[in-house]
């Protein structure tokens, strides 16, 4: 990631924040608006950050993964299902139910990733098609089970959606959260905080450990790695599965941290936007996180403009329309992919099956 890229990201975020400050200044102080927007931005960027990290593990080892969307959707469903089971069938306390849910979500992501690994590494299926298979299967399975278990006449919960254990509570980090006004930014829920930690950890793993060196080698020039005794297939399998865990945690955000219910296709393209963030971040964790923040900011903008709806002057009425404002992240993604803001370079062996 070069400084120009970070500067562009900062600029875009400042413009989006500025818009809300200008609109809302008559009701709140700029400082309050900015901290609240920052907090929202970081929170809503969570699935994008985790999705991008998922992509980084896969693609740095040479496997393109467009199935992140499906992995997150599957994880969101099964994690939620597990938490409800724990809560209503096994009568566990909400906290334990939720944590079980997170665990199951992460595991689900890993299992979908294992399928992707089998398809793309062992069977050498075209990796983009393999990812599409994951997306379609995840949509089908979650849609089917959601209806079968909660709405069918023979359903487990008798045709009603049972009481859910709620969402994961915010964590109060001592000191940081006590800072006046700005403390609000650090008042976050656990998956969001783990995502931030995972950005740092992934950077360290990728660039300062043996594992990371070998992962990058396998993604750049698998044959070279093979000739020095590195097991290319094993490295790719493990990295794709780790990537699946990341996507699974990202999926858990939707049903265990953001809201406490499941909707079919609720990931709504976040998995694909995460890939764009990964590309814009040049396959680096910090870069991808910064790019994810841009999308988070776009969403925070949308939320805040809805909040300040009444204050928007008639000349800017277009900003009142959530459909129009909602276009921002998608158009932003396409702009980023044009490479007009600087080309990024994918790992050299990304998407290519390894043939001995």
């Amino acid at each position, binding site marked *: 990631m070069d400084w120009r890229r970070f500067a562009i990201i900062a600029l875009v975020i400042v413009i989006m924040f500025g818009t809300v400050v200008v609109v809302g200044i008559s009701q709140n102080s700029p400082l309050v608006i900015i901290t609240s927007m920052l907090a929202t931005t970081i929170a809503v960027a969570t699935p994008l950050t985790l999705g991008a990290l998922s992509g980084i593990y896969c693609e740095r080892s040479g496997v*393109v993964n*467009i199935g992140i969307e499906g992995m997150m959707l599957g994880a969101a469903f099964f994690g939620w299902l597990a938490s409800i089971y724990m809560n209503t069938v096994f009568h566990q306390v909400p906290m334990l139910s939720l944590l079980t849910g997170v665990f199951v979500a992460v595991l689900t992501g890993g299992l979908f990733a294992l399928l992707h690994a089998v*398809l793309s590494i062992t*069977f*050498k*299926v*075209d*990796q*983009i*098609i*393999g990812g*599409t*298979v994951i*997306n*379609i*299967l995840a*949509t*089908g*399975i979650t*849609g*089917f*089970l*959601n*209806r*079968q278990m909660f*709405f*069918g*006449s*023979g359903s487990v919960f008798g045709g009603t959606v049972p009481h859910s254990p709620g969402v994961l509570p915010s964590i109060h980090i001592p000191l940081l959260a006590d800072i006046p006004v700005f403390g609000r930014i650090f008042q976050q829920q656990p998956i969001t905080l783990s995502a931030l930690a995972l950005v740092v950890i992934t950077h360290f793993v990728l660039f300062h450990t043996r594992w990371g060196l070998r992962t990058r080698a396998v993604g750049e020039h698998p044959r070279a790695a093979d000739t020095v005794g590195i097991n290319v297939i094993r490295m790719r399998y493990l990295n794709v599965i780790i990537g699946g865990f990341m996507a699974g945690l990202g999926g858990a955000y939707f049903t265990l941290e953001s809201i406490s219910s499941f909707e079919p*296709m609720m990931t*709504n*393209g976040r998995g*694909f936007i995460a*890939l*764009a963030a990964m*590309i814009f971040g040049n396959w680096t964790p910090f870069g991808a996180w910064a790019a994810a923040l841009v999308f988070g900011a776009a969403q925070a903008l949308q939320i805040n403009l809805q909040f300040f709806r009444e204050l928007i002057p008639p000349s800017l009425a277009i900003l009142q*329309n959530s*459909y*129009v404002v*909602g*276009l921002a992240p*998608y*158009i932003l*993604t*396409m702009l980023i*992919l*044009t*490479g*007009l803001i600087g*080309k990024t370079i*994918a790992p050299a062996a*990304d*998407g*290519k099956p390894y043939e001995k």
Partner: protein
Amino acid sequence: MQNIDGQIPVKKLRDLLNPLLVPLLAIFTAMVAGGIIIAIVGGNPFAAYWGLVQGSFGSAAALSETAVWATPYIFAGLAVAVAFKGGLFNIGAEGQLAFGAVMAALIGYALPGWLHIDLPAYIHIPLTVGLGMLAGAIWAAIPGALKAYTGGHEVINTIMMNYIALNITSFLLNGPMRDPDPLNLSARTPEIAASARIPTIFPDLRVHWGFVLALLVAVIIWWLLWKTTMGFEIRTVGANPDAAKYAGINVKRTIVITMAISGALAGLAGAIEVTALNYRHELGFSVGYGFDSIAIALLGKTNPFGVVLAAILFGAMRNGGTRMQFMTQIPVDIISVIQGLILLFVAADAIIRFIYRIRVREERVVLTRGWGG
């Protein structure tokens, strides 16, 4: 390479059946796996599948409905298949279809009013369908042009265009194009004029001439790809863009044209749904066509006639699924699971070859490439 007799080998029946073997086994395997899932959730797979067959092929009405379902699948499957032939992965059939439908609805209900004349059907129908196609073509040409001239990957861009299309159609159908009928509670357009409606083939059945058009278009696409110089260019760019450039083909233009053709076919799917079936566009009616069409194109091995067969199969499953749900209370969503599994086994044909110990290798077709460009 010893045999230099210079003869085109005569195709034996076995050679003709061989390409069908893997798709048929993939369908069979997916059905078995789906049956196991049905059994796990407490259903009777045999009853379920019997309902499926009854509902899709059991009567004239069932056959008619299967054809009705298959029609958009044929168009959208062809759309994805053409893109694959050109080395492009169009995941955006959904959005292109929606745009074609919105445009067709607009021309269908509003054009006579704008012109203050009653249009004859022979003008109004082609205009409605044609502009619907055009809308889809433009919607797909945008990611095509981005791919050709900036290198932005079409997989992500076509998906982004889906969401943009969804937002714009939501905006239109909730705002400027919303059906003003005071009884209307949903996001939909007004009904199109009678002069823009494609008639049904039989008086009592819903199957319409759009189905016949779909079959005709499949033939046209086959002809375009294999008999024309433009088809040669599309296929060459798809098979080896470097060689295409070497051969003097304008690769960038061909990419845009391929995406436009692909989008036009998807737009046609939407336009036909509006003009021949629903007579209006309603939000949410097309959810799922985009991904289904990928499965259909792959199941049909990107061959136009294969796509027709695959589309009829998928149409039959969707159609019969409703009866299956009615008879066995198995949610119709199981069809999505089975279709996902069919795609899984078709894409990973190595799994099928492994399970059934098939040794004949076929040529691997390179369908897509990584982010490189």
